[in-house]
């Protein structure tokens, strides 16, 4: 089960985990995106940014197999994705916790669906609750917790199945700014402990640059990859990364790429 056979540091190493080839998607007559090509390494975080409605969440759902794509293919390892597959887990924007389940029951959910034996579930659930910093809240219901704590629970549920691909759908968009920052560094800490391939969809340029090894900018209607920016910041990423002179340069670079696009998108909407 260990993914540690290649003792590489963060970034691309060897075979990519995810391969997206010539991907296109329609909703009826509306073409959402076309000709999307990118890879994600086994220990790489790829952030996807783009204006609202550019289809980044749709793209992520296609990779998870929740939505069918029309053109092209998605490979995770050697498996062609046509439905959700084992080894891929998603963290949802609105947490997607089951409100009638406690923290423990929510974290156990993915393991139960994967058919894990009871003993394994009993062992792993507390381990992952502790990993995300929710120890002591095992029996709390989602409505009793803040948004930040709920997303910690959502993260623990995804991590508990020990996926080799994590799909993050604007996971911190629904929490306040301060909590968001805390969770970003928590995620980096956890990822450094248990690196996986990760696709991180976000509205926040800062978040994309801080977390991503590469940032993909989606553009246009239908959208396609406008630019892929390699984020050559020192590893591991920490609070100091925010002070790095290169951070400001890269953020500016993504910003200017995106903002030119955002004005265009607004214009389209106004018409």
């Amino acid at each position, binding site marked *: 089960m260990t993914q540690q056979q290649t003792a590489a540091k963060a970034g691309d190493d060897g075979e990519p985990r995810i391969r997206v080839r010539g991907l296109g998607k329609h909703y009826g007559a509306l073409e959402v995106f076309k000709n999307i090509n990118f890879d994600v390494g086994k220990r790489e975080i790829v952030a996807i940014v783009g204006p609202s409605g550019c289809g980044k969440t749709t793209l992520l*759902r296609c990779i*998870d197999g*929740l939505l069918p794509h029309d053109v092209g293919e998605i490979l995770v390892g050697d498996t062609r994705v046509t439905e*959700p*597959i*084992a080894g891929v*887990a*998603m963290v*949802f924007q*609105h947490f*997607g916790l*089951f*409100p*009638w389940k406690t923290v423990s029951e929510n974290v156990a*959910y*993915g393991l*139960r*669906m*994967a058919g894990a034996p009871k003993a394994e579930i009993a062992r792993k659930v507390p381990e992952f609750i502790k990993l995300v910093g929710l120890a002591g809240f095992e029996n709390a*219901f*989602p*409505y009793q917790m803040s948004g930040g704590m709920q997303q910690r629970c959502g993260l623990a549920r995804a991590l508990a*199945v020990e996926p080799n691909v994590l799909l993050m759908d604007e996971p911190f968009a629904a929490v306040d700014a301060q909590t968001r920052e805390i969770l970003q560094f928590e995620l980096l800490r956890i990822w450094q402990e248990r690196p996986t391939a990760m696709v991180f969809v976000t509205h926040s340029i800062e978040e994309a640059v801080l977390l991503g090894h590469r940032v993909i900018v989606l553009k246009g209607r239908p959208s396609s990859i406008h630019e892929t920016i390699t984020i050559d910041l020192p590893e591991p990423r920490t609070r100091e990364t925010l002070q790095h002179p290169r951070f400001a340069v890269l953020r500016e670079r993504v910003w200017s790429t995106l903002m030119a696009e955002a004005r265009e998108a607004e214009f389209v909407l106004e018409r």
Partner: protein
Amino acid sequence: MLNTALRRHAPFWISIAAGIAIWEIAGRSTSQAFMVPFSVTIKALWQLLLTGEFIRQFFDSAELFLTGFMLSLAVGMPLGMLLARVRVLRIGVEPYIMILYATPMVALIPFILSMMGFGFAPKVLVVFLFAVFPVIYNTVEGARSIKPELIEVAQSFRSTEWALWRDVMVPYTLPYAMTGVRQAIGRALVGMIAAEFFLSSTGLGQLIMTASQNFDTAGVFASVLVIALIGVALMRAGLVIEQHFARWRQ
């Protein structure tokens, strides 16, 4: 502590006492052929209890009520969830549910009588028909209001259809279904009495009919009072159960 509790419940008990007083006065100032006072009603109820007649008829009615009511839950809840999950089925079946829900069930009793006769089964069918539609309706509405994101979560974690029902559909829908169940309790009671009036005469319905034919107004009042109290008690119980299933809905 005792004082605040007393003050909070005082309006309730004052209202009940006033109601009984008005009943008593109205009963005493009218002909006993139309209405009897509260005290006479209670005395008549006591007499009925002593003969054992009331208890026997009560259990007869309870059997009919519970059979029809439980059947309406056993059919209404799964059917409601199925209709919410399978769109084609819902579009096909919903108009008939609407028509039957809107139909005064009493109007169907002659038809049921001619089809099925006087046995226990047609009476159960009447109770069932009275009770089942609010259960179906509220279950469908509840199950349809489930956030698509939660279904997506289940799919993302590769849930089987069976696990989706067990872990997501059923726990989400239960509190909504319980709203329908509470309505169904009231309607099943109406159905029970209607069936006992118009099909073979048994149970509390028969007790009311017989008393009425003998101009025993006190007997009629006693039976009606008991049915009303049972109805209130059952609906309270339904509310408690609903709140139990809805703890997570804050």
